Structures are given as structure tokens and as C-alpha cells.
């Protein structure tokens, strides 16, 4: 029996304790283990002219990511899947507030791009339950779960000198602003408002970073998926996520979250009708968390692996 190049590649990945829980495409573009530092992830901030008060409100305060050992008041340090540290995104305790981290790359040639990660999500421990929350607590379902709003995986793609630009965005809505559990994956149906669009008066300042109107989201077919919140705000369970998109077709391809594999090929992705300069071959990776209550929401990423078929 002779081994092919691909057999050997897969065998090496499966023998590596860090990589064997991932399913990379042929070329690993980067593997970010947050035990090794922040790895190029940084707070997204809006464009400005040096005067930070000129940053648009929606992109003014997206908070710096943190290297977290996931310590909680009742159990101490939880750590991460491997090692101690994960990257944590934390909102302010203010309804509607979002925290987003971004990693900025460029692409060598068009093709498939796949982002994989192990993540977990929590709302901050609250000691001030409402009377309804106190009455509803049954020792299993905890009000804390209803305090967690949503998180979104997105990208920013710009082609070459033509300036064609688009964002894909996939959002998990855990609970709405009233605390009703939704548990659905969504995709966006309108353009992300850019600084250029807002300065030109093309659109109103957005309430939702990713879309022009907060209602511009649709459920992904097969997107209903309760995740493992695990009852109270201090128990974290890590989830596998794999998202693939194609910069040749300007489309999402697939989203896998644990057992749920969602086909995204027919989902439309809005493309700007105007060009952007200075962004040749832009390939940005973005992850955010948004609270819908006056309670901090947290998203933890153990590690992130991005691979391509170039």
C-alpha cells in the first residue's frame, strides 16, 4: 500500500494533539492558540482622522480582547480546552453593546477559506434576579441563560483593483432583549454600513453593526440549535465550529456547529454597489458578542484555525 501526499498530511494532523480536533483544508493559513498570546486579534475600531471622537458610534467602543484563564467566583480557574488561556470578548453591561475582535490578512488567490474554533459563551453572574426569575428557577434552567444575547462570526472580503467588497455574517441568537430563548443561527440580508456610506449620507447610522436595519436577518435553514449553556454562568462547555466560504463565488459554503451541518450555498451575500480603494485582496476575520440586557456577555475562543485550498 502506498501513501498519497494527502494521506500523509491527514495522518500528521491526526497524530498532533493540537490539530487532531480540527479538520483543516490543505493549507493551514494560521493556527492561533491563545496560550501563545493574542496572535493578531485586536479590537475593531472605526475609521477616524486621528480624532477618536469622530469614530462612528457603532464602532467606537468595541472593547479590547482579553487573554482569559476563565476564572469564576465559585470554582476558580476553569482554563481552556488545552492549557490555561482563551481569548475572551466582553461587552459592557449595557443593552445593545457589542464587543468585536478582528484579525487582518490578505489572500493570495481566490478560493475556499475555512475558520474553525472551539468556543463557549456566558453571561456575567447576576446577583439581582427579578422576582419572575427567582420564581422561574427550577435548579436546571437558569435565568443567566436568558441574559445572553448573541454572537456573530463574520468576514470582510475585498477583491483586487475592482474594489468589489462584501461581508458574510452568521449570527447565533441565544435570547432576545426580553430574555426569550431563540436558539437560532441567522444570516444577514443587507449590507454592513461602512464609514464611507455613513459620511456620504447614503444611509442612516445603524443600530446593528452588521446590517442597515435590525430586522435584516433571516434564519438559516436547519439553523435551530440549542447549545450547551450548562445551567449556571460559571460552567463552561466548549463547542466545535467550522465555517467555510468561497471567495470565487462570494458565497458562504457551509457552517458546522457540533452535529449540525448547515448548507449555506444558496444564501445570498450582499455586495456593495460602489468600490472601495486601498483594500486589495483584503481578508479579515471578525468575531463579536452582543448583549441585549444590562448584563455583560462573554464569548471565549480556545483556539482558532484558518485553512485554505490555495
Amino acid at each position, binding site marked *: 500500500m502506498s501513501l498519497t501526499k494527502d494521506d500523509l498530511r491527514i495522518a500528521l494532523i491526526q497524530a498532533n494533539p493540537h490539530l487532531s480536533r480540527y479538520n483543516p483544508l490543505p493549507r493551514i493559513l494560521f493556527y492561533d492558540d491563545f496560550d501563545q*498570546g493574542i496572535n493578531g486579534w485586536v*479590537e475593531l475600531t472605526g475609521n477616524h482622522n486621528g*480624532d*477618536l471622537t469622530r469614530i462612528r458610534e457603532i464602532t*467606537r467602543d468595541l472593547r*479590547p480582547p482579553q*487573554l*482569559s*484563564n476563565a476564572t469564576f*467566583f465559585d470554582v476558580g480557574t476553569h482554563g481552556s480546552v488545552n492549557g490555561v488561556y482563551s481569548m475572551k470578548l466582553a461587552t459592557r453591561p449595557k443593552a445593545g453593546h457589542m464587543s468585536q475582535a478582528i484579525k487582518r490578512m490578505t489572500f493570495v488567490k481566490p478560493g475556499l477559506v475555512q475558520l474553525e474554533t472551539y468556543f463557549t459563551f456566558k453571561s456575567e453572574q447576576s446577583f439581582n434576579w427579578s422576582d419572575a426569575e427567582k420564581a422561574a428557577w427550577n435548579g436546571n434552567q437558569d435565568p443567566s441563560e436568558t441574559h445572553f444575547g448573541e454572537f456573530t462570526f463574520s468576514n470582510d472580503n475585498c477583491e483586487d483593483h475592482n474594489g468589489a467588497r462584501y461581508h458574510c455574517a452568521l449570527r447565533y441568537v441565544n435570547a432576545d432583549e426580553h430574555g426569550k430563548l431563540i436558539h437560532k443561527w441567522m444570516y444577514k440580508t443587507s449590507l454592513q454600513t461602512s464609514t464611507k456610506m455613513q459620511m456620504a449620507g447614503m444611509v442612516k447610522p445603524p443600530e446593528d453593526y452588521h446590517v442597515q436595519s435590525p430586522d435584516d436577518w433571516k434564519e438559516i435553514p436547519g439553523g435551530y440549535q440549542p447549545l450547551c449553556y450548562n445551567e449556571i454562568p460559571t460552567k463552561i462547555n466548549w463547542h466545535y465550529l467550522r465555517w467555510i466560504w468561497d471567495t470565487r463565488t462570494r458565497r458562504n459554503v457551509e457552517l458546522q456547529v457540533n452535529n449540525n451541518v448547515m448548507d449555506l450555498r444558496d444564501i445570498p451575500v450582499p455586495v456593495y454597489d460602489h468600490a472601495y480603494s486601498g483594500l486589495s485582496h483584503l481578508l479579515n476575520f471578525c468575531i463579536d458578542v452582543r448583549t441585549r440586557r444590562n448584563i455583560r456577555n462573554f464569548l471565549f475562543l480556545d483556539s482558532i484555525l484558518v485553512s485554505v485550498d490555495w
Partner: protein
Amino acid sequence: MRHSMTAVLEKSETYTSNFDTEPYEVGWASEARWFIRIQKIAGEDTVLRAYPQISPDGLFWCDEGSEPIVMPKEGLYSLALREFGQWLRLRCELAGKSSSVMVLIYLAMKE
């Protein structure tokens, strides 16, 4: 090579009353330095005092014990800390009449 990282915790925000910075995790770092840049200061006898605070859990806080950073005018101020546990924040007190400050606050950390 030692890891290092800087977080910008307040970006030209204007405050007219006392405030705390958001909790920030520093368990991986052995040293940290606050930088506060007062960009604008207005009012009568306005002084901003920043007290470093520590926490075991990001929920409950106490003063770290260092003398506060006292900032009566525009400029850059700094304070270094060690042996601070898992979390840091600043408790900021704004004194004076009709006072306001615009601040940039950085936390620079090293392994």
C-alpha cells in the same frame, strides 16, 4: 521572548462624574502599567484621581493600595503595578465644580 500587550480601555471618552474602567483580565502578566492621557479638562478646581483596584473574580473589587494618580491638568500620567492577581480596573473620582474630563486610558502588560 516575553509576551506583552496593550489594551485601550477608554478612547477619548468624556466623563462628568465618577466612573470605573471595565474589568480587564491580567492573570497572565507579572507587571502592568496604567497610562492615562487627559486630553481635555474643564470646570472649577477639577481634579481626576484614579485608584487602581484588584479583584479575584471580576465581580468584587478592592483598592490595590497604591497612592492614586492625581491629575489636575492635561497631560500623560502613569502608574506601575505588580502582584495584582487576576483582574485590574481603575476607580476614578472626579472632583470640582461643573467638572469634565476627556480621557484615553491604556493598560500595558508584560509577562
